[in-house]
């Protein structure tokens, strides 16, 4: 187990990167705390897997250092880093039995057979494959194979970190829950540092203590699920997390007032000297439809998704979403919207501005 430090790390797949756009992973400083469970969340192609492969040593960063427990491992090969990694698509050794597959990482490290047998028993029970240990891995279903891959990742107790690269993509939905719970349990029991790459927000939010959101090669926010929800630091975090995502509306800010067209919204904090593209962001959960209060809105459509209703509406020429409770009454004459001032964030050039208490 180890603390992993990224020091001025950046990576480009081009030999001579010129501008910042050439970097798949932009400069980054971060400590991954020992024993924490992280999720690395972002859209496809945002640099998540690049970062993961740099940590596991499959890729050498073009700039910066990486340290395990303050020891520089930038040039250390994968084997020396003592890392376990599970990939998006199942990797199994076809000609081996399930048992030999699980035992492979231990045997390669010269562990004695009694210990290997014990670990294999334990792990196979955990992934629910103890009844088919003697079957050949060839010919198993994709999710069985992926369970073997997961098992191979978990079989070593002494790893510095466990890395998962979208490991549950090929798994059936009902099995996903179960495996995620197992991973969570494993984390609680053994306290490995875990980094879990995914583009699925539910997966990230349920698995991790801390979620690292990446966008366009950059880490835009690191925080608990709650922080990501209430105070997204970047508009991307706002609309990537949440279903539907945050409403982002262009506005002019004047002290503690936001002006949209000529309508005025009072903010909790005051802002001064904002430049560039200025927007306010408010989550659908913190918007409320009403008959009398607030600003005019034109309701287009109401979608009942079971647990709540999503109202699609037009607000000064912008599409916004409002969430109403399952039992809330929505009627035709409700054509005004109010925002909970506590949760209205202000963004300048996509980054959140903290503001001062007004």
């Amino acid at each position, binding site marked *: 187990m180890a603390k992993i430090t990224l020091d001025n790390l950046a990576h480009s797949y081009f030999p001579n990167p010129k501008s910042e756009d050439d970097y798949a992973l932009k400069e980054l400083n971060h400590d991954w705390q020992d024993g924490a469970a992280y999720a690395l969340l972002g859209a496809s192609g945002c640099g998540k897997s690049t970062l993961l*492969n740099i940590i*596991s*040593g*499959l890729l050498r960063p073009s700039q910066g250092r990486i340290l395990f427990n303050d020891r520089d491992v930038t040039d250390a*090969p*994968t*084997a020396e880093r003592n*890392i*376990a*990694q599970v*990939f*998006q*698509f199942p*990797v199994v*050794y*076809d*000609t*081996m039995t399930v048992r030999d597959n699980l035992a*492979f*990482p231990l045997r*390669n*490290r010269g562990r004695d057979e009694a210990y290997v047998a014990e670990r294999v028993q334990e792990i196979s029970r955990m992934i629910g494959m103890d009844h088919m240990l003697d079957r*050949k891995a*060839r*010919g198993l279903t994709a999710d069985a194979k992926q369970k073997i*891959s997961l098992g*191979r990742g978990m079989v070593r107790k002494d790893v510095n970190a466990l890395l998962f690269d979208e490991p549950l993509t090929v798994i059936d939905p009902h099995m996903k829950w179960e495996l995620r719970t197992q991973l969570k349990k494993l984390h609680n029991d053994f306290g490995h540092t875990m980094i879990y790459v995914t583009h699925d927000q539910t997966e990230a939010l349920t698995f991790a203590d801390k979620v690292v959101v990446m966008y366009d090669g950059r880490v835009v926010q690191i925080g608990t699920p709650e922080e990501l929800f209430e105070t997204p630091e970047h508009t991307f975090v706002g609309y990537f997390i949440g279903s539907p995502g945050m409403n982002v509306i262009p506005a002019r800010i004047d002290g503690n007032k936001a002006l949209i067209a000529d309508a005025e919204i009072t903010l909790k904090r005051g802002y001064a000297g904002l430049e560039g593209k200025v927007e306010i962001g408010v989550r659908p959960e913190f918007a409320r439809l009403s008959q009398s209060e607030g600003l005019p809105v034109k309701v287009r459509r109401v979608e009942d998704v079971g647990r709540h209703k999503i109202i699609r509406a037009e607000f000064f020429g912008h599409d916004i979403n409002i969430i109403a409770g399952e039992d809330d009454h929505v009627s035709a004459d409700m054509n005004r919207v109010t925002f909970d001032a506590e949760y209205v964030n202000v963004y300048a050039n996509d980054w959140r501005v903290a503001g001062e208490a007004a």
Partner: protein
Amino acid sequence: MDKTVNQKAWFLVLPVLLLVAFSAVVPLMTVVNYSVQDTFGNNEFFWAGLEWFEEMLASERMWDALGRQLLFSAIILAIEVPLGVFVALNMPKSGFWASFCLVLMSLPLLIPWNVVGTIWQIFGRVDIGLLGYVLDALGIPYNYTQDSLAAWITIIVMDVWHWTSLVALLAYAGLKSIPDAYYQAAKIDQASRWKVFRFIELPKMMGVLMIAILLRFMDSFMIYTEPFVVTGGGPGNSTTLLSIDLVKMALGQFDLGPAAAFSIMYFLVILLICWVFYTVMTNLDKREG
């Protein structure tokens, strides 16, 4: 979904049927016809029954040729398959040198068989051939026209030179289709180079390797031109392989009956071996799926 029934569609296969009839069925039937008859010229044929088959089965000459043929195929497979795999493993995976290697490797495959034979025939000559002359100058006794061992080595090296690239190219294609994640996982599992080969590369190459083995076996089992050009089957009968022997019998001695019986048995042997290969390969596929 309803399928339209239209028997006229059978006419669409008629051209190919005609083609196959003229190129394969009719000649084969002619051979069958010859194999059960005897002739003393003048286009007079007499019914001979299975006499030729019995004679050929008892013929030491045919068994010797078959033995030489099997030995030849076994030796070239034992060399070309491991060597081809070894070459494929060491070829660059991408970039200029990968294309360069691919072109270089395809060159021998593009040379007509009789030209390959001629190249080696001259190459090995002690008086003017580079190889023969150098060996002779080094004091190594080498003369493929007089020494059976030298003749065998020459035709085997020639076949290896000509066809190893085919195995290498097929194995290379198999290797290229292995996703990177396998190698990465192996690194993380701390697998040795040998284990990577044994548990990842070899199993993933198995499919194409079977095809390579099948192709090389069939080709070498039917080989005629190259050894014929180099040694003409000699010295003595030492490099007379099945097809060379067959041609000698049919066109040299004009023994149509025995030669026809010989061909049919030759054909059956190839058919049998193909069937064995086919069964093994489909079973492998099944285990794969």
